[in-house]
């Protein structure tokens, strides 16, 4: 099986431009975050919509200037940021598609490619969240880790397009790895939003420009609830593949172990939201721990410990 070097380099260019687009988009979100005039009524209506019991809207100091030109520009930049994010995501998709074409296999066969897929899922999740919740200016906080991960992926973990070794030549590579990328990419958004939630609750004076705590909580919860079953299915697909490839469906390989740990942490998150005294801050903290476990599993387990998953391209 040959590798199409031309397509592969097109893929790399798309990747680079996508990162560039995300950086520009992040700066636009940042402007809106910094200077935007929040549409109070919209926020308020949504707050009711999601059934807030106590009004946790933290009063901002009254904006010195009423909806002025500056605020108008901020809103325009915010809209532009979404457009640029979408543009970046399209390039991101192209980058993966070109890799797939260049190598004639699923474009997530090593750590660089997996990271790229994960980041794409995170960005797409963000674009969907935007349509449901008026939290556009938070884009800066979501794109920041995405850009960091993509930079790391492109610079440190970059792997030239190549076929995968026999152990990975299975249709389960398509199913299992994609499901895991979906699950772990989606939880990036709640992970970040939960950090903002904690900030909002613990240090409200720093977080005047963040949306109401209940809104952040809702964004985190609804995204996690969507991602968790997918992640669960991904782990189970992995077990089915392991039965086919390694001779047992579960063997406490380091990657499996930490996947299990992350799963248990997210299970704890869901339970915590149904437990008196654990909602809110503690639940958010658990969500952050869950995301940290995912990242730990991606980097530490692959790069530091030696396990059966260590062929992931590094």
């Amino acid at each position, binding site marked *: 099986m040959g590798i199409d070097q031309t397509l592969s380099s097109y893929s790399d260019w798309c990747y680079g431009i996508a990162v560039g687009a995300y950086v520009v988009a992040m700066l636009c979100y940042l402007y809106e975050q910094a200077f935007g005039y929040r549409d109070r009524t919209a926020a308020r209506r949504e707050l009711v919509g999601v*059934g807030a019991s106590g009004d946790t809207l933290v009063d901002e100091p009254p904006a010195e200037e009423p909806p002025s030109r500056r605020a108008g520009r901020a809103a325009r930049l915010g809209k532009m940021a979404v457009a640029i994010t979408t543009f970046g995501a399209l390039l991101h998709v192209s980058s993966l598609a070109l890799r797939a074409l260049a190598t004639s296999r699923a474009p997530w066969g090593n750590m660089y490619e997996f990271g790229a897929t994960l980041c794409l899922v995170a960005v797409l999740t963000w674009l969907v969240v935007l349509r449901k919740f008026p939290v556009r200016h938070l884009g800066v906080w979501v794109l920041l880790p995405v850009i960091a991960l993509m930079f790391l992926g492109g610079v440190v973990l970059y792997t030239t397009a190549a076929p995968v070794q026999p152990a990975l*030549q299975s249709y389960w590579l398509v199913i299992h790895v994609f499901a895991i990328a979906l699950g772990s990419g989606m939880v990036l958004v709640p992970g970040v939003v939960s950090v903002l939630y904690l900030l909002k609750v613990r240090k409200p004076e720093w977080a005047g420009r963040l949306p109401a705590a209940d809104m952040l909580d809702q964004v985190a*919860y609804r995204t996690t609830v969507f991602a968790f*079953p997918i992640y669960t299915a991904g782990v*189970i697909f992995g077990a089915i593949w392991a039965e086919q490839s390694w*001779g047992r469906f579960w063997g406490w390989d380091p990657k499996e172990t930490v996947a299990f*740990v992350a799963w248990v942490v997210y299970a704890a998150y869901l339970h915590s939201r149904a437990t008196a005294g654990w909602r809110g801050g503690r639940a958010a903290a658990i969500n952050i721990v869950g995301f940290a476990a995912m990242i730990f599993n991606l980097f530490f387990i692959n790069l530091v*410990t030696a396990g059966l998953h260590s062929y992931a391209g590094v």
Partner: protein
Amino acid sequence: MIALLRNTWRGLTSMRTALVLLFLLAVAALPGALLPQRSLNSTKVDEYIAAHGWWGELLGRLEFYNVYGSVWFSAVYLLLFISLVGCLLPRTLEYAKSLRARPVLTPRNLSRLPHHHEATVAATPAQVMATARKRLKGWRIEEREEEDGARSVSAERGYLRETGNLIFHFAMLGLIVSLAVGKMFNYEGQVIVLANGSQFCNVGTLGYDSFRPGLRVDGTDLNPFCVKVDDFRPNYLPTGQADYFRADLEYQSGADLESNTWRPYQLEVNSPLRTAGDRVYLLSHGYAPTFTVTFPDGKTRTHTTQWRPVNQLTYLSEGATKFDPPGVTDPAERRKRQLAITGLFAPTAVLNGKLLDSGFPDLRDPAVAIDVMKGDLGNDSGRGQSIYEVSQEMVDNGRLKRVARENLRPGEDLTLEDGTTVRFDGVQRWVYLQVSHDPAQGWVLGFAVLVVFGLGTSLVIKRRRLWVRATPGENGTVLLLGGLARTDQAGYGEEFGRVTEDLLAELTPASERVQANKES
């Protein structure tokens, strides 16, 4: 006493305890990923203990190298198991009751609910009720007459949420039980078979190089089947990266054993042979050089012994092929004249001066770099020894001495001082097979599918209630709507809004609508 038991039970089955136990489970599982584990790599554990002194030994005594079989890990998941059962029993009873229960009475004050709406419409209360019933199709509905001619509908839906929730938790229980059953009756054995038509039969543990039985398996009652490895064909890309590994097998099981019928199977990574309730996997492969030793008296001995790869990329391999002198019956005499050929094998030789290395994993230009050792191999010492090494102890105390060192290509030989010749004849391949047996894994899979199904259902579906009350008033019928999501309010507002809009649109033309929108 009973109070103590009851309190313990309540404490154990409370959600808070379950949460803490979940955390403990996560924390307890972590060391298994960070510390070497006996079950995965015993050598690494020994190295770790050696490198960390008393600390390493302490960890060993606390079962940190066997986390998933340790007392403390078992304690956590057993407690969690009990907590789960204790949580599920009452919930199942409640669920059974709720299956037949009618929707609850309409609350007196609907405007206190998180979602509510008030409007005045021209339609009569009876018309309002009819419209509401029509719109709330699919909901479980109870219509009631109230005081002052008011009427109300109490509607509830999303019962599948609890169904999914219970399915998820029961499937978790089933999964854990199936895992335990699997641990009782499973076995797993590894064996190296030369890919030259050699056979392996699953008749007992002795046939294996290593064997790990389940708790209730003693190795006497394995599922009988045989495999014969005819050939092993790897394919590598020019970069040295493996493209595929294929082993041509023949196997027989069941009735084939009696009729001695062999069926072909192409064994590959990701494509195990499934027969007789067992699975046969291709785990890895390697080389087995063949040496012929011609003793001074003219007798010859030929051995083909597997050597192990020391470099997984180039398949540079090491090993020791051991010979007993023929026709020597006196053990003392024999121990002076035993031979071992030890050193390196390279499938594609690259020589740096006299130093042998391998440049490619496939057989292109094989060569060996060997030391011939003569003396006492230590086979009679009663101590087990590796088939890949000579006993270092015998070398150290001078009872096993090096008598020659040479690099050989296939067909080349060397002659020792006493006239013995050692010829490197060539090389064969071996495959490392694993036989696995787990009668419960189908159950595990079934429960795992239910886990995902239950999880999806319980997380996507919301249990929610909606009430409509119509009270005759001066300017028409006062319509009051209230909504409450029982589990999580997330997203219910949108649905409530839609229902409200639909009802109002149905009841009065928009222009006549008198609205008192008192949303807070």
